[in-house]
């Protein structure tokens, strides 16, 4: 085995994976180190990617282009729309105001860009949700409850029974979320059915989540299994031994000190 960058990468991956898994024993220095490296690397990654993929093409480039075109005589102009790049100065100004948050004295000016963001997001969410989650969902609940066009029951397709379940569910859950009327009499029964539907929804959500979480663990184990090949010098196995030895040594040192470690 020769140490190529690829093999080195496998070793680093295997070590970091096992360092995080060492948390399963307890919070320990190896895990803490890996966790802090993770926070650092993800922050650096985010910074670079935000600049290179968002700020550079959408802010810096249009401004540069506009500045270049302003200096050129009209005949040489390639892009007649380049001057519109100057509009981005507004965004730049608001962005700089946002950065003022770092200053204790001028922090309040960051309220302006924040107000701008909140206004835009509130408007978009309001209209988007009213359309997709309110109007469309209510419309889709207007299903036939009688009639000979539909079968009485089908496992997947719309059927009379399924439509009744759907309609009763939506009605009862909506009634459950009534706040200005006391839940008694028929309302109480409806709200009880509503909780039943909610619990079925949460239960199935839970069942699905188990699927998700186990899949991720399987993915990691599959990777570790691949890292343990001969080609890579049995990276996973060696790293596992190192991490375990470290944990044992750390635990012994703590015991000898006589003080139960604080965290």
């Amino acid at each position: 085995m020769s140490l190529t960058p690829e093999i080195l990468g496998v070793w680093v991956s295997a070590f970091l994976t096992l360092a995080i898994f060492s948390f399963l024993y307890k919070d320990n220095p190896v895990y803490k180190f890996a966790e802090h490296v993770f926070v650092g690397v993800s922050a650096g990654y985010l910074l670079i990617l935000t600049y290179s993929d968002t700020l550079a093409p959408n802010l810096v480039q249009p401004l540069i282009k506009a500045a270049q075109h302003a200096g050129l005589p009209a005949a040489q102009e390639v892009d007649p729309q380049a001057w519109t790049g100057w509009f981005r100065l507004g965004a730049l100004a608001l962005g700089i105001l946002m950065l003022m948050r770092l200053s204790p004295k001028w922090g309040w000016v960051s309220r302006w860009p924040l107000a701008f963001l909140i206004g835009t997001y509130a408007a978009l969410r309001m209209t988007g949700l009213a359309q997709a989650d309110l109007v469309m969902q209510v419309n889709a609940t207007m299903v036939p409850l009688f009639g000979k066009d539909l079968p009485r029951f089908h496992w997947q397709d719309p059927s009379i029974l399924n439509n009744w379940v759907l309609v009763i569910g939506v009605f009862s859950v909506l009634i459950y979320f009534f706040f200005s009327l006391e839940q008694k009499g028929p309302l109480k029964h409806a709200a009880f059915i509503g909780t039943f539907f909610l619990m079925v929804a949460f239960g199935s959500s839970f069942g699905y989540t188990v699927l998700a979480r186990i899949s991720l663990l399987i993915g990691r184990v599959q990777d570790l299994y691949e890292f343990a090949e001969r080609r890579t010098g049995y990276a996973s196995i060696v790293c596992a031994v190192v991490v375990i030895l470290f944990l044992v040594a750390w635990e012994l040192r703590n015991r000898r000190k006589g003080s139960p470690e604080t965290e």
Partner: protein
Amino acid sequence: MLRDKAPVWITFIVGAFMVSKFFLNVPQVTKVAGELEQWCLIIVGISIVLGVVNILRVNLKVVANRGRDWGYKLALIVSMLGMTAVGIVELIVRKSIAGESVFQYLYRNVYTPLSATMFSLLAFFIASAAFRAFRARNFRAAVLLVAGAIVMIGRVPLGATIHPILPKLADWIMAYPNAAGQRGMVIGAALGVVATGLRVIFGIERPYLRGN
């Protein structure tokens, strides 16, 4: 005035304009709204930078004062600056961070395993939660458990192998009772969002005015 009233007006004007864009078919409105959307992308981008700078600031303080766990914080700062430096060099030299590069190498071999493993720890938490928390304490919890168990069995191929009705039943639960419950919540939440959106746009509620 500038501190308190200006933000409320900015929210109102921008919000009302974006709402009207949704309903109007005027090219000028669409164009201005398009530019404002660009601004939003850029401001969000810059505020991401702000968050990162804040991490740096908080941790540098700890390291400078030799506070608790300062060694780890130093590792954090070093890895953050290292990643940033690599990215800057790539951007200057190659004009791009895509393709085969040191930046992508670090993404693949440091960021990917850390991030994926962090998330996979959840599997153990769900196992311990299954043992300790998921108990049929009352009728509601019992319904939750039974529905969850049926879906868990029905969603994996072993369930279909045991009995072909299991995946069908799981799917029926998902497609009708679950969808009905979800839809009730979705409609309710949409009403909540419309209410909050209106309150924010009309300046009745302005929590962003608190703090610096």
